[in-house]
């Protein structure tokens, strides 16, 4: 498999766009957002735990990224 950049990854790109186009009609009134505002519903609830998870898994696996801006690497071996 040769590397092809994401813009040629049509299937995933189409899925991505379709998903968000369909969701554009979602309507949730301002006073109906109490559940979404709970801290346990946050994308990143505990920044230190997320940072530690990224650090540990990135050090032991070949894949990385996709969890926000990356820090520097480490000499982990």
């Amino acid at each position: 498999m040769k590397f092809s950049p994401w813009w040629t990854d049509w299937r995933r790109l189409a899925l991505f766009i379709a998903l968000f186009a369909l969701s554009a009609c979602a309507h949730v009134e301002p006073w109906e957002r109490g559940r979404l505002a709970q801290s346990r519903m946050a994308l990143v609830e505990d920044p230190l735990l997320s940072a530690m998870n990224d650090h540990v898994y990135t050090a032991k696996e070949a894949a990385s990224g996709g969890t926000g801006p990356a820090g520097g690497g480490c000499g982990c071996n």
Partner: protein
Amino acid sequence: MLLMLICLAAPVAVRAADAPSFTLPELETGRMLSLEDFQGQVVYVDFWASWCGPCRKSLPLYEEMRQQLEAKAFSIVAINLDEKRADAEQFLARHPVGYTVLLDPAGESAAAWQIKAMPSSFLLDTENRIVRSWAGFTTDHLEEIRSEILALVD
């Protein structure tokens, strides 16, 4: 993209000058109160919820304002939009207020008043007509609110 445009094209109704009425139970007593019960006073109506970040700032500041304006013909009516009463009670135990708190867990009054942000607040004159409204809350709002109120009660 097209879908998005269709969704955004929904007409926005302009609010009438007369404030929509409501009849809601008071948190402390369970007594039903209507907007008409406050006729003859300047009323500040605040829509809030315990989960709303700026409400943590605004409620204690409104309480301060209430105490300063106690002698005037002025009332604050806070409409709580929490789904669960316990959340409102827990919040008020931490930030106690002396003004009227009404419960509207279904958010019917918020829908009638077409609120667009949390919190939202409205200043009504003695005839229950909307004089001014605020969407959201920052500490800068407070001076505006206070001077508008003083202009109406004096």
